[in-house]
């Protein structure tokens, strides 16, 4: 088991299985088809992301460097949360970007009964270490345990 310490963007505690995108996570490209056509597994639709294309994102600990792409990104993430199609948590190796931050904040302020902890600044070592399927535990203080 290895511990990493990050910064809490939106709070919460959760344990989930890791899903790792080493590349920038394109929120619109990843979620659009799954949300639009009711994919129950919420599989990633981003054909440019070889790491997670076609893999289920629902309830996973989504590990990523940052998000990229369209500025609908934040509202897409907000919709995913409001529709309960969101990852269990989002864990950023880098500082969070403006689109992901918007989505996380919108969900936190405007969606009732949502808990999707978002932690950033976990460092490159976190993304080098974590692999798909590893068990991730997020603590309230931004500590992330990987085993």
């Amino acid at each position, binding site marked *: 088991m290895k511990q990493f310490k990050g910064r809490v963007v939106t709070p919460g505690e959760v344990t989930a299985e890791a899903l790792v995108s080493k590349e*920038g996570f394109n929120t619109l*490209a990843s979620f659009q088809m799954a949300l639009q056509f009711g994919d129950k597994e919420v599989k990633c639709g981003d*054909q*440019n992301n070889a790491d997670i294309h076609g893999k289920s994102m629902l309830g996973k600990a989504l590990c990523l460097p*940052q998000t*990229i*792409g369209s*500025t609908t990104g934040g509202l897409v993430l907000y919709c995913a949360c409001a529709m309960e199609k969101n990852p269990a948590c989002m864990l950023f190796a880098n500082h969070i970007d403006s689109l992901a931050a918007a989505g996380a904040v919108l969900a936190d302020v405007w*969606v009732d009964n949502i808990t999707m902890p978002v932690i950033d600044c976990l460092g490159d070592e976190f993304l080098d270490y974590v692999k798909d399927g590893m068990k991730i535990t997020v603590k309230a203080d931004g500590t992330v345990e990987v085993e």
Partner: protein
Amino acid sequence: MLLTPEQQAILDGEKGETMAKVMKTLVMYGDAFEAEKLVPITSKYNHLVTSFGLKVMSPVYDLMQQLLDSGVASAQKFSVDPRPLDKNVPASFLQNFVFKNFMYTKQDFYEKQLESLGLLDKNAFSCACYLDEVGNKPKKDDVLSWAESSAVVYANSVLGARCNRNSGIIDIMGSIVGYVPYFGLLTDEGRKATWVIKVETTKKPEAQLLGSAIGMKVMEDVPFVVGLDKWIGDELNDSACAYLKDFGAATASNGAVGLYHIENLTPEAKEQGNALIAEGAREYIIDDAELERVQANYPVVWKNPNAKPKLCFVGCPHLSLEQLKSWTENVVAALEKNGKKKVTIPTVFTAAPGVLEVFNNTEYAKKLEATGVVTSYICPLMYMNNPLCKTMPVITSSNKLRTYTSARYYTDAQILEAITGGKN
């Protein structure tokens, strides 16, 4: 974050619960970037990214309705991204059925919401809102609350305005309270380049390909591009602006670029030169081979990679008037050269309603119509955003459209050849 007494009062609920939640959203958003304060928006108009009444986006319309029901409105009028539907664009019976009955069932409802919230006018639907014919062109140093990645990067880079890559919904929340958090691309420090891009090609690089290469390399960082002025000049004329529009859209969609500087061309690069380059900036050299490598690595997701294209989109982001004219001349000339009268692949050129209105009053409109090319105000991305299009071989010169859909990227020259009877 330090708030003024007025801002604190809104946060404390003096203007109602909904306004307090809007302010809380902006404060939390700013806190994520250690913003010290909120600063006033100074642009005349806002620009929103969400133009589509997708049934699945009902949480967005519910939120907008909450704003309207509580009497909240945008302090600024705004333009918005292109509409997702246009009967001019070829679509099968099944596609039309899916569009109208399953996907965009909220379109009319949402457009009414936009009108109530402060839509500029019924024609204010374009991603290229900054074009003169659309009329939402901010001034240098204006502080914006815009979304739409291609518009934000253009406003920052070509016009010298100041705007972060805001998400949809955050965009309108800024103009409801009149403030945005002060961080990132609003600050002098945040506008410094952390990459130097050296363009060493032997010919003018394709705008959408160069932007793609840079976007994928620098992600959300700020690039300072050297050597491009050799190909596009040192004046922000129509041609250079159109190039930068397409280049920027690719940097923003293939990466997350919100601002770039072009040596000897864009306003801050002209004013500050190398002083804009941050200490320790990394370097990326782009030559012909690198651009070839980038294009060759795009995945082809067509079921049959050798299929004959069934549709072609040009104009994502929307074409400028000059681009529409030059595409018309090029298509007419290429058809003549190839001994054809009409394009051999159904082709749609997309532009803002205001641009199309002007274009339709020029001699070029009839010439283009004669070639069989259709013009439209549609958003090609929204058109293709469904499983029916996934199996449809669509070609485009837009790297943004390629990124988000199954459309295949061709350079402008390849598109021209394909649609005028050359190779597929």
